[in-house]
């Protein structure tokens, strides 16, 4: 389209424009006189001859020779103008059509913008809007995996090598902790039974017995802690913690 217009304009200019200065000047002069209102747009032969005379005077050339030559050239130009006008009319029609299409296109976009809605981030037009389809055949070829059952492995996790020494150490440690918990529970039950008979329990005495039997300091500490918790929960029991002052004697 762009190329068409450029070619047409250049071709028509070439055809319309006179190839010598006298004729070009005459056309310009006639146009000037029309615009100034000195002569009508459809000027007479007399107006034309006068204009030729004026141009000849201006160029200091022989009027009789000029008149004949210019008449022939003007007539040739007229034919070319007729042809070029026809072409330009066709081009104008095409441009008008294009222009109208562009206007319609802008209106169409405006209609789409007015009627489009953003619903949860999706741009949606009314259901009644005519929609067009395009081919969209995306062929998918499913590749079936080929399994070699001779190389088939069971999906079991690989077992790590066991450190027997570490395993035994951890086992002993856990059993020892379990034993402490069991013994703590037993001692707590025994003390609890004593408390329920209404007797005063002096933990100091129990502490010595537990250490002697269990031969482990962890058990009496856990029992003590358990007793504090139990007493706190049970409001009928009272916990008294005696504090003793330790005197340090300076060596003299």
């Amino acid at each position, binding site marked *: *389209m762009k190329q068409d217009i450029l070619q047409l304009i250049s071709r028509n200019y070439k055809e319309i424009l006179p190839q010598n200065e006298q004729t070009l000047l005459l056309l310009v002069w006639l146009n000037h006189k029309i615009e100034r209102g000195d002569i009508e747009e459809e000027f007479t032969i007399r107006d034309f001859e006068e204009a030729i005379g004026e141009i000849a005077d201006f160029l200091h050339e022989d009027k009789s020779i000029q008149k004949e030559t210019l008449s022939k050239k003007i007539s040739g130009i007229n034919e070319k103008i007729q042809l070029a006008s026809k072409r330009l009319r066709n081009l104008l029609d095409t441009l008008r059509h294009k222009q109208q*299409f562009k206007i319609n*296109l802008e209106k169409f*976009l405006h*209609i789409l913008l*007015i009627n489009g809605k953003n619903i949860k981030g999706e741009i949606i037009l009314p259901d*009644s809007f005519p929609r067009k389809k395009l081919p*969209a*055949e995306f062929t998918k070829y499913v590749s079936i995996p080929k399994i070699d059952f001779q190389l088939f492995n069971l999906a079991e996790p690989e077992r790590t090598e066991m450190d027997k020494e570490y395993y035994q150490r951890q086992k002993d440690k856990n059993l020892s902790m379990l034993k402490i918990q069991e013994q703590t529970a037993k001692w707590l039950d025994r003390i609890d039974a004593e408390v329920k008979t209404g007797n005063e329990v002096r933990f100091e005495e129990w502490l010595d017995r537990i250490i002697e039997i269990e031969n482990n300091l962890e058990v009496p500490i856990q029992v003590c802690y358990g007793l504090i918790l139990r007493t706190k929960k049970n409001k009928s029991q009272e916990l008294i913690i005696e504090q003793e002052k330790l005197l340090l004697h300076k060596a003299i």
Partner: protein
Amino acid sequence: MENENTVYPFLNSDLAKKHFADTDFALKQGRHIQDFGTDHKMFVFMDEYYERGLQAYYEDLFGMKLVREETDHDRYYFLSFPDDGRGKLGKGNRSKELEDDRLIFAILLLNLYKDKFFEKKEVQWQELEHIFKESEHKELWLQLLYGSQKPNYSPGEEDSVKTKIGRILKSFEDLGWIYFINQEELHFGLLPAIDRVTKLYGDIINNVENLQAYFAHEQLS
């Protein structure tokens, strides 16, 4: 040669052996093939054999029209549904509607293509942003893209809109309507085949007044 095909002579050619499969896949996926970039070889093959069996092949065996169009002296090819039916590609999942967001952007890009009559047909993200935020219809654009009109949008909102538009442009690249110059920055060129939208929606564009009246009536009722 005993195996020579006389109905579809293109099948006998060396070019067909090299490019027919790619061309066929591309056309059936909705691509518009023109003399540009990696499509060049397919274009040359189609140009050579369009009237030597290729057009007839799609019409006889698929009931589809292989169309040769021209805009601004640039030719392009695409598969189109026949006027009186849907052809073999109209069945099942072999076709899809141009989604609403894609249609709006296709019309926008077609407008830009026509505007850039004497210019380089390139578009940068800044130009699109200017349309969305500064143009005559900025309120409509902002409402449509962001879901609300505000003086400023958060970086998250901006990113989300840009990503969405990036996806739309990618689908246009797949259709052969644009090519990316810098995909990350959404800098792209418009290809002559964007003019297909004119053919696709020509009936509506030429009678846009009717559409306007139709929607006005629908809103009233």
